[in-house]
């Protein structure tokens, strides 16, 4: 089940010398934009606790406060109140300590379009104070690693979307960050580009990096994140692993697709009595019956037996957990928006 962790953690400042248990610690974070009528609470008491070395997904509809949270945690935006610690340092009082330890991959590639990939990475390396030679060496390594070594002096302006994203990711890894922020990293990418980013994230986590990922793709959170916080209206409304969140919506379901659409109603009655649900949901177009189950294996065996006894052919019978879409609808009362 989703957990709501204790709110009393290590007060005071951490020098970062001893490894801090939490990569990110957020308590009662608030941020309001605008004044008067146009006031909008972007963050309304957000809490987050993210242990080191994990991938944490932040899921929420547009305007839920995902990007605002990332901007506060990456020192780009000052919160009105509340506490935010990243890598053990407070984002408002020790922003530079935070900045040396984080990487940020925003929604749009933040690159110098006129420069080449190598020049971009060298510029950012210099700005991280690696020195000219250090920056050049690091740029070379990263170009190699992200398959951009042969782009030569081509300006980023001429890069494809996927190349741009890879370079952007490389730029956010210059300092081998302890914590990487990915704000909707695959929005607007084709499936190939999306898989590339996912692979890169997985290999990073293998190397010990903590990743905070905001996404509008439920599948992405499901694929990558160890834990997921669902936020809405600037506060967390649920948290847990994907499986735990799915369990929130209730039981697992059994889906039966009948071969003969004419017999859907009859089949539904059979499935209903086999699973003890009464009247399961049906979808005539897909010839689908869906019923919640308590005991997975018993329900499956009983359904197969009852259908066969009634002489009803099933095209497919499957047990499944609810999708994150259903979780989302259940928690927020409104479906996840897919528009950017």
């Amino acid at each position, binding site marked *: 089940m989703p957990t709501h962790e204790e709110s009393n953690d290590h007060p005071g400042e951490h020098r970062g010398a001893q490894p801090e248990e939490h990569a990110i610690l957020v308590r009662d974070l608030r941020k309001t934009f605008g004044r008067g009528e146009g006031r909008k609470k972007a963050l309304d008491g957000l809490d987050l606790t993210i242990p080191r070395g994990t991938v944490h997904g932040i899921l929420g509809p547009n305007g839920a406060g995902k990007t605002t949270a990332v901007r506060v945690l990456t020192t780009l935006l000052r919160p009105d109140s509340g506490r935010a610690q990243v890598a053990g340092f407070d984002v408002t009082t020790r922003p530079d300590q935070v900045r*040396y330890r984080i990487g940020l991959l925003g929604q749009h590639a933040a*690159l*110098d*379009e*006129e*420069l080449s990939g190598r020049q971009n990475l060298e510029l950012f390396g*210099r700005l991280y104070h*690696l020195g000219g030679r250090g920056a050049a060496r690091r740029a070379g390594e990263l170009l190699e690693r992200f398959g951009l070594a042969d782009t030569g002096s081509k300006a980023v302006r001429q890069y494809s979307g996927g190349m741009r994203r890879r370079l952007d990711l490389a730029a956010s890894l210059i300092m*081998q960050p302890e914590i990487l922020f990915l704000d909707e990293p695959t929005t607007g990418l084709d499936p190939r580009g999306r898989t590339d980013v996912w692979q890169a994230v997985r290999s990073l986590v293998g190397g010990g990096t903590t990743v905070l990922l905001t996404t509008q793709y439920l599948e992405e959170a499901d694929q990558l994140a160890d834990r997921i916080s669902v936020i809405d209206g600037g506060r967390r409304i649920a948290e847990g692993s994907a499986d735990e969140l799915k369990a929130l919506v209730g039981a697992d379901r059994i889906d039966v697709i009948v071969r003969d659409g004419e017999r859907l109603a009859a089949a539904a009655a059979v499935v209903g009595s086999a699973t003890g649900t009464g009247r399961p949901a049906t979808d005539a177009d897909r010839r689908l019956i869906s019923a919640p189950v308590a005991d997975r294996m018993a329900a499956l065996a009983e359904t197969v037996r009852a259908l066969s006894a009634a002489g009803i052919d099933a095209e497919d019978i499957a047990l499944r957990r609810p999708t994150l879409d259903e979780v989302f609808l259940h928690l927020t009362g409104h479906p996840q928006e897919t528009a950017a």
Partner: protein
Amino acid sequence: MSTMIVPVSRTRRFLTDSASMTRRGFLHWRRQPGQLVIGLVFPVMMLVMFTYFIGGGMAVEGGGDYSEFLVPGMLALAMAFGLESTMVALTEDINRGVLDRFRAMPIAPSAVLVGRSLLDMINSAAGLLVMLGAGWLIGWRWHGSLAEAAAAIGLLLLLRFAMLWVGIYLGLVAGRPEMVQAVQILIWPVAFLSSAITSPSTMPGWLAALADWNPMSATAGAVRELFANPGWPNDSWAADHTVALSVLWPLVLLAVFFPLALGRYHRLSV
């Protein structure tokens, strides 16, 4: 996991970060020399157009050579128009998210703006030399002392420096290309409502008064005086005190726009 943290003192960081930012601009120039050349040639083109297309119909009262009158005015105009390039560069960084990447890095906060101003000043100094060379070719000469000439160039660069911070402020406020276009159009009447190209005494009375007090008139007039180039006789107080005003105006602009720009930069995180 180990983090590479390079300890850097505050001063050193400010210097190296500003240098890195300026270096970025040099790379832009090297990659797009065409744009650099266009930027340098455009004022020269204006100078040539005004000298040969329009200059024939202009007579300087007291019989001076129009090109001698025009060159100082054109230099002042070029400095004022420089605010465009400052503004465009900043707006592009904001829109492409590059500014956010810089701000999420452990760099000296002022380095982004200082690097930009250093770069634009170098560009403007080069542009000034090119224009002086072009002026020389079309017959403009200076008749004062070397120290006066140096003072004239100093005043021009001072105006450019002030306009630079106006540009930085407007770029940070505008943030959008449409706003940039609006400023690009508005700068024309503001720049031409001055003594840069012609005498305010040829304008309707109330416009003439505005033109007399225009910062560009002050610098153009002061530069004419220091180069000992002809000017139209003008008995307004402002026209009599161009050198003082050409120092005062940029300082006033700086006093207003320098803090505004820095404040605006800091407000990016609010």
